[in-house]
């Protein structure tokens, strides 16, 4: 495909015609412009921030070297504070982690065991499909018994928990107990319906997800932090 000559292309392009918006358009142009400018002025006035209060003007008066000096001093002070916080002789996070653990001892193993046992019960119900499985395969009697035991165990654990971390586990145990009580009280004649109610409760409170998170957290608390810096 050969290109047009330059002059020919320009000649064609110059045949372009613009539409005439008409007399009415031009006659009303000023009024529309004036209305628009008044509207814009109103918006700008509403959005205007009082200039004297602007801190930018004050900062503009301060020389740049002053900012650099201030930043240097702040870094120095922050370094001293961090040094004090770590303390003399303690050069690893392992030590500070152990110190924190000693302040708030948690029955980590017991909590993890409790969550694991609860998880087994809950998973068996969550994965149970009443339409396709034999309800008797669920062995509901055993699960009701274990749930009762877990409710009691949960009460004991709650008494042992304190502090911010303890409170987090305590809340989860309280939610779990609510579900476990429901399981413990399931009517053997209405298995399918009862299981559905429990499953809805599980989903609403995202219990299984919370248990998984709690178990990960507990596992990391159990592992020794021996990575010295």
């Amino acid at each position, binding site marked *: *495909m*050969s*290109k*047009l*000559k*330059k002059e020919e*292309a*320009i*000649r*064609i*392009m*110059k*045949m*372009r*015609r*613009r*539409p*005439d*918006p*008409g007399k009415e*358009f*031009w006659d009303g*142009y*000023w009024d*529309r*412009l004036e209305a*628009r*400018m008044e509207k*814009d002025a109103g918006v700008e006035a509403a959005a205007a921030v009082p200039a004297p209060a602007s801190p930018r003007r004050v900062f503009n008066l301060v020389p740049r070297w002053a900012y650099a000096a201030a930043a240097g001093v702040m870094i120095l002070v922050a370094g001293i504070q961090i040094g004090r916080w770590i303390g003399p002789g303690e050069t690893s996070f392992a030590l500070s982690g152990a110190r924190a653990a000693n302040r708030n001892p948690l029955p980590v193993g017991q909590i993890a065991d409790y969550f694991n046992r609860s998880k087994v019960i809950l998973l068996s119900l969550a994965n149970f499909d009443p339409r396709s499985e034999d309800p008797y395969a669920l062995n509901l009697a055993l699960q009701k018994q274990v749930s009762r035991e877990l409710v009691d165990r949960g009460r004991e654990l709650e008494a042992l928990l304190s502090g911010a971390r303890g409170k987090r586990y305590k809340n989860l145990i309280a939610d779990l107990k609510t579900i476990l009580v429901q399981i413990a009280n399931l009517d053997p004649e209405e298995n399918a319906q009862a299981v559905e109610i429990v499953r809805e409760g599980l989903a609403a409170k995202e219990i299984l997800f919370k248990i998984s998170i709690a178990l990960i957290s507990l596992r990391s608390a159990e592992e020794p932090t021996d990575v010295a810096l």
Partner: protein
Amino acid sequence: MNTPDEQDLIERLAAGDRSAFREFVERYKKMIYKLAYDMTQSHHDAEDVSQEVFAKVYRSFHTFRKDARLGSWLYRITVNTCRDFHRRAPRETAAGSSVSLSSEDPPAIEATAWEDDPEKAGAGVFLQARIDRALALVSERERAVFILRHYEELDLKSIAEILQISVGSAKIYLFRGLRKIRKELADFRGPAPTEVSYE
């Protein structure tokens, strides 16, 4: 240089004379609308852009150097406003450009030489569509240079001043734009120059 009329208007505008601003709008509204229409290819966008240009002029006339050329300053504001307009509300056309023809726009063909001949009228519509498409295919900067050079009949030095680029760059943009346009119109043979003329 500005004409004595323009210089008088500049003085009055600088003094904050409201009636001078209205006079200014009446004098330049068609010029700015025309350029905005060429850049946006949309009547509604052209009106929007032209009003925005006047609002900018009103707000920032104190920044205008009295020894500068008023026309160049207005062209620059218009081109920049078109650019900002496209960035704010980019719209895609079949050609992939950010300009478009709105279906609500007035017809691009005036009832002139073709109105008595349906065949010629059809060819005219087709021609306008091809020209618009060719303009839409070039980049924003290439389009601005082409329009200022061939529609506004400005020399390259003035175009470079308006777009705040070097004359060499303006030449390159013009060359590139024209190359794309020639390629787009390669298979097109328009009517003879005597049949239609560009206003």
